[in-house]
């Protein structure tokens, strides 16, 4: 019954509009069929909410040698994690490099909780990042304007326009030059990262932005970057900057 109460209380936060009507940018949501849109907008029909519920349970479960849970230090996620996902990837002061949300969660678990590492695209990591991500739903994408991130973001922009794979495509050829057109039966969206993790109907499961990007790379017959790689974090930094001000939809549904 706790689940039900949580789910019902979430309904009230959907969604606040951060973009102006003239903004040519469109969320992938706009390209979906009405049934898929309805599925995302109803927390009791959006299968990614099951992932969120798992994350909520993990949030308060002590694990690791330190005997702590996320809640031991961060308390109510609704307060402490509000707006956090909207500004990731951000700079990790210790390493001087950008870190994405999953990387930050892994850091807390491994160093502060002394818990075993989680598989990046595994169920528990997706659950935690979806639960943390939900706390930014309805808020605008707000990438940190830290000068030290600039070279990494530029690297992301370079990758976005670099030819890849046997088919020799760039991300931009599909997502800028041909957005709104169709690739087979699928409309090509503008590649905004504002709804991740998502439940993808094709996957029949919840997955991260990096899983989505790997799909695109495999589509161009490129060797996909690995999960958590510097390349993916650079691409994500660039995509978040490109989507600055757009509304976070996490957890989204995509076809």
């Amino acid at each position, binding site marked *: *019954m706790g*689940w*039900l109460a949580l*789910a*019902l209380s979430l309904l009230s936060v959907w969604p606040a509009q951060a973009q102006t009507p003239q903004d040519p940018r469109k969320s992938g949501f706009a390209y979906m069929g009405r049934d898929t849109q309805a599925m995302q907008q109803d*927390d*009791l*029909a959006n*299968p990614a*909410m*099951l992932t969120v*519920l*798992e994350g909520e*349970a993990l949030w308060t479960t002590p694990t690791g040698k330190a005997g702590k849970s996320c809640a031991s230090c961060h308390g109510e996620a609704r307060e402490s994690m509000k707006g956090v996902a909207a500004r990731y990837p951000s700079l990790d002061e210790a390493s001087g490099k950008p870190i994405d949300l999953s990387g930050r969660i892994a850091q807390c678990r491994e160093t502060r909780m002394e818990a075993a590492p989680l598989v990046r695209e595994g169920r528990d990591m997706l659950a935690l990042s979806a639960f943390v991500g939900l706390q930014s739903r309805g808020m605008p994408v707000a990438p940190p304007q830290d000068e030290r991130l600039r070279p990494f973001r530029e690297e992301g922009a370079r990758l976005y326009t670099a030819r890849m794979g046997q088919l020799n495509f760039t991300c931009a050829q599909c997502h800028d030059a041909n957005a709104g057109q169709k690739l087979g039966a699928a409309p090509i969206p503008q590649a905004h990262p504002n709804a991740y993790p998502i439940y993808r*109907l094709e996957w*029949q*499961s919840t997955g991260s932005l990096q899983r989505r990007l790997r799909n695109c790379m495999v589509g161009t017959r490129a060797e996909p970057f690995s999960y958590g790689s510097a390349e993916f974090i650079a691409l994500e930094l660039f995509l978040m900057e490109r989507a600055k001000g757009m509304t976070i939809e996490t957890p989204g549904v995509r076809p």
Partner: protein
Amino acid sequence: MTRALINIPQKAKRGEVIEIKTMLSHPMETGFRPSSDGRLVPRDIIEKFVCTYNGEVVFSADLYPAVSANPFLSFNMVAEQSGTIVFAWTDNHGKTQVQTAAIQVE
């Protein structure tokens, strides 16, 4: 532990037709899909869903491998008296997951 999203009105008038929506976290693995090592992923599907209202079956369904992961079922029933609604999903190994909800009828 059962992970399910259940949507029922907490209160209803006597005789009112209410809508119930349920979604269970479940892979609905068909048994036909090879995993990355080439071997078939064993079949794991929900075969039966039963909803009882104060002990009486008000809705049931047989599910098959073509049903997608995280099966979503929605149905209507007439609210007659306050009590407990029990949702039970049984898989092909005979294991049953149960979730309950209370309803107040005025």
